[in-house]
């Protein structure tokens, strides 16, 4: 049976693109892909601490880039005939994704696996705390 609601984590990585392709493949006629980008507080803090950017600059960059990834994912999914809605949240992905999965009655969370960028631990934390199945795409 096809999942009704897929929660897809969208970021800049190529694994995230691969995860999108899998989400589209897994979609049935009744499936909605809920694509979410999280403006990661940890990344904001890192950019600010390094002196690379001010807090406002870091937030603007991460928010705008995040929306770009979301609209790009939306374009890809809709072009393939898949149903998709997009949203952006702020916080920590390991907290935001399980919360959204519960709120929206998600059957399946799909994320890309990018070792070395904290995603491995995100996958582990999701498997531990998500209220539904988690698919990690390599």
């Amino acid at each position, binding site marked *: 049976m096809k999942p009704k609601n897929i929660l897809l984590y969208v970021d800049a990585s190529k694994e995230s693109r691969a995860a999108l392709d899998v989400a589209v493949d897994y979609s049935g006629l009744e499936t909605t892909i809920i694509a979410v980008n999280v403006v990661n507080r940890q990344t904001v803090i890192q950019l600010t601490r390094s002196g690379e950017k001010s807090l406002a600059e870091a937030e*603007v960059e991460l928010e705008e880039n995040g929306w770009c990834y979301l609209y790009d994912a939306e374009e890809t999914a809709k072009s393939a005939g898949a149903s998709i809605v997009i949203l952006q949240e702020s916080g920590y992905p390991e907290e935001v994704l399980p919360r959204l999965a519960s709120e929206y009655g998600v059957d399946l969370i799909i994320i890309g696996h990018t070792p070395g960028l904290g995603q491995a631990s995100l996958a582990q934390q999701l498997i531990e705390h998500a209220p539904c199945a988690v698919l990690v795409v390599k």
Partner: protein
Amino acid sequence: MMNELKLSSLLTPKNILLDVKEKEKDALLAKIIKTFSEVNNIADPEALAREVTEREALGNTGIGRGIGFPHAKSSQVEEISVLLARPARPIEYGALDGLPVNLVILIIAPDSGDNNQYLHAMARISRLLGKSEVREKLAQVKTPQEAIDTIAAFEN
């Protein structure tokens, strides 16, 4: 960031509708597309309406926080064009967060245009209208020019 296309540079008093009377989403979108087509001299408004509604059917464009953001690529325009509408009363839009919309912005890009510019324009607009202070100011403006000035002030 590249492609610094600003919303205020795309707006004129003609492509801003304040206190739109339509009470349902479909009627509101029809009104917006009709006005957009008139302002931009669209050759085939029905084709444009189809393109927007077909995209909408594949995923609600309510992006949360009371914003509706219908968008499409179309052969009917030669450059990125927008229309901003503020309903007289919040409209049930079917957004994921369940909130009715207070602001709707339609953006149409040429189907053969620069996709990167289109994505960045939508990203900038989404971020801008995601700010509560921007939405609060836009809820209070009394004229289209005031709306443009408000948006320009936040973009600069």
